[in-house]
């Protein structure tokens, strides 16, 4: 019977020893009060790694600074000539090369040119509801080079003229290279517009690889990693148009496309899905859904030797217009302009 008493005592001792472990952080549990309620200040002033960079040489600009507490911050870099904008945001108590590096890329189009830029740092303390900002200038002496197969940026008039196309005989037709407005990249873009009251098709521009002097566009066979990127401009208030991009693959090795033996497929972009102004459309080739086709029914970018961009609108909807610029295939990810 004495064993009955032994067990609880032994258990209690063991239990006490096992249970007595605790972390007692010196600065308390949970989020730090100082991170929340200390007044914001710079503990280390803002410093630039460089005030200018030639982004074509993969140079970068970053800043460093330290704050008294973690805060929401936003860096806005705006091109003085182009109006291009780059935004970098974060929540931290430190700015450094890891979280502020600018490689010449763009958040809001057009793309940066070689130009002077306004560099603004905004710091918002949500809890104490204070705003702080600093403004300086930096200079892009060269623009960022994007890796990929550039099809057309509409800067070279002679090259643009080589692309065949078709324009309906409608009213106010404008299938032309233009610089009437700011281009997404460089000086020129392609203006597609008009009013056609008898057909959906307003016009198209074709991109056969033969114009580049190559049998295909030299892309990877893996559709998962190939993207077609294109800058599109939606004029304010004009949303009745839509783009259809049709691709053709050369699967039989012959020059002419045989739609009853080779794969052809298309991707549609509706203007109602776009916002006003320039924006980047990146299409992963593997996302294209094939309709009826007579090839191997597989998207194989390495076999694409022709694609065309058609601009269409409902004939009853009146005048329609859209601009395109900087058509480029990239691999491994969408374009980061």
């Amino acid at each position, binding site marked *: 019977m004495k064993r*009955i008493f032994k067990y609880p005592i032994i258990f209690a001792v063991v*239990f006490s020893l096992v249970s007595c472990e605790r972390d007692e952080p010196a600065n308390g549990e949970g989020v730090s009060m100082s991170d929340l309620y200390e007044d914001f200040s710079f503990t280390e002033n803002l410093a630039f790694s460089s005030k200018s960079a030639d982004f074509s040489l993969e140079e970068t600009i970053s800043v460093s600074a330290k704050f008294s507490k973690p805060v929401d911050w936003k860096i806005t870099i705006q091109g003085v000539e182009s109006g291009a904008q780059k935004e970098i945001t974060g929540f931290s108590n430190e700015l450094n090369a890891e979280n502020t590096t600018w490689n010449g890329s763009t958040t809001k189009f057009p793309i940066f040119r070689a130009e002077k830029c306004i560099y603004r740092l905004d710091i918002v303390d949500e809890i104490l509801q204070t705003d702080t900002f600093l403004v300086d200038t930096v200079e892009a002496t060269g623009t960022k080079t994007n890796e990929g197969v550039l099809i057309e940026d509409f800067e070279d008039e002679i090259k643009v003229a080589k692309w065949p196309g078709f324009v309906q005989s409608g009213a106010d037709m404008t299938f032309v290279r233009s610089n009437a407005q700011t281009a997404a990249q460089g000086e020129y873009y392609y203006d597609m517009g008009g009013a056609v009251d008898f057909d959906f098709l307003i016009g198209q521009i074709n991109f056969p690889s033969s114009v580049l002097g190559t049998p295909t566009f030299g892309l990877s066979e893996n559709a998962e990693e190939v993207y077609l990127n294109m800058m599109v401009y939606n004029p304010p208030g004009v949303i009745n148009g839509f783009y259809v991009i049709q691709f053709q693959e050369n699967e039989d090795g012959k020059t002419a496309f045989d739609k009853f033996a080779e794969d052809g497929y298309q991707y549609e972009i509706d203007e109602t899905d776009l916002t006003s102004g320039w924006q980047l459309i990146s299409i992963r080739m593997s996302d294209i859904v094939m309709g009826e086709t007579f090839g191997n029914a597989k998207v194989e970018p390495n076999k694409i030797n022709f694609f065309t961009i058609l601009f269409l609108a409902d004939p009853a909807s009146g005048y329609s217009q859209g601009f395109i610029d900087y058509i480029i295939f990239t691999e491994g990810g969408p374009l980061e302009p």
Partner: protein
Amino acid sequence: MKKLLLITLWVASATITIAQTTGKRIWLSGAARNVLFFDDYTKNAGTADTLTAPKLNSGHTMVDLAANIQPNSNTFINGMVRIRNDYGGFWGGGVTFDMRQLYLKGIIANTVRYQIGDINYKLSPYTLINPNHDLDHVFLDYSDVFTDIIDYDIFYNFNNSWRQQGAAVDFGLQFNKYVKELNFSGFVSRQNPTNFTNINDRLMAGGNATLIQGEFGQLGLNYVNMFDLVGTSDDSTQLQNPVLTLSYDLMYDKDDYKVGLMGEFGNSQTIVNNDPLAPAISDYFFDAGIGGIYKPYNIELSATLKNVGPQFFSPGAQTRRLDYSRNPLAYGRYGNNQSLRPIGIFDMLRDASLYNTTLTTGLGAFNPSYGNAQPYGDATPNRKGVIINLSQKDEENRWEVALTNGMLSEIVGSGTAELKSFNYLNAVATINIDEFFEGYDKGIKLSGSFWNESTERTSALAYEEINLDNQAFDLNLDVEVIKKGYLLAGLRTLTSVGNEFLAERNRFNEIIFYAPMVADVEETLFMTGARYEFSEKSTLSILWSSYDSKFADPLIENYNISSLALLFNMKF
């Protein structure tokens, strides 16, 4: 050893006993109630409130009808239906029928008692317990008139147990030497059902083994675990929150003195399996008390030393009754801004919708003005310190006084190295005036209480400083003017001035934000009325009350609600 064992049948329910002696097999029992509130709202100062209806009448009549069925001597079935007609309902409109309660209980092989269906269960203060109402230690008699209704409706009236749906068993062994009894109990209950997509069934299971020595005390081993049942939905993560404790109550009783050691210690773990973001949390607590009674003067003194870790999480013990994140039903929005009306001491007495009926895994919202030292009961995490109780009761039942002094602090700071301290004093006195007059056969009772609590954190950094002072006062007078007929009067006030920070936690109970709170509140509730007791189970009360809520913050509108309440309660 075999000779020592005598397996006994434990306490069978009184209803079964009655049924056996009378031979009754099916009988009805239940309760009936009529409640009417006639509220009158006024804005205290400033621009007249043109948006809030000044008068609001509400109430209901209801009958709980239970069928008690005893198909055999070892089985008992109870099914209770509630028929309720809200004020304004007529000819069937507004009438609701609900199944209020359904359980089956009995005895297996004259040894193991079981209950399935609706069960009420509690273990120990650190494993599974339904804590007392907020400010229960301050607000006395009048609270009972109203809170009895709430307690009955949401099953808070079973000795601090939680009403759950599940199954429970218990049995005991009795010895004739060294140890008097060894009792075992266990239960499993469902906390929330699966939605078959992303919420698993959540269960709670636990039990207790209690060794009762008899003359010198008892030891208890308590275990409870709240856990998800993986496979009941597509969610592969699984919460497990086991809590294991050892409780003891040792006593030595000799001549004029009785002394004792009582307490509980143990640990908890909070684990979320298959969630890479989930931290593994564990912590321990101890609660060690020493107490004594000097019998000639009926004086009782006790002191408790406690230390409850900041990461000790026990859903069964830390789920609060009042959920401060809810809003009152009556005058839920008020004033010209139609602001949400915060819960006041008036609502705590009347509004059952403010109270939790299920256990929660996170630490629920509370109002520091209504008690900041131990908002989650004894098991409030991140507390250490000493609590001293002193009480004295007159042997002729003429008075009873009690004094509690708590001196607690945090174990680790809340977002800072500096610790908060919590000091409170609670004094309660009851005087049965009639007992001073020999031969006077009607009751006159005067009771009062005072509570003061201060929360303080000093720091060299101004934003870390905390200073919150709470005070409450309660005075009640019950005068029996005719046999079983009482006139009642009561006044209670609560003031809270200062500042605090309210911790906001994520789903792992980690603190992610400290929201500043500034209190400058004064609440006053005056009540008067009459109660007539037809019998112990049947009372009629009519009470008039005036409640004032004043805020120093000009953005929060002050108001008054006066109310006439008519309450009839009967059990049969």
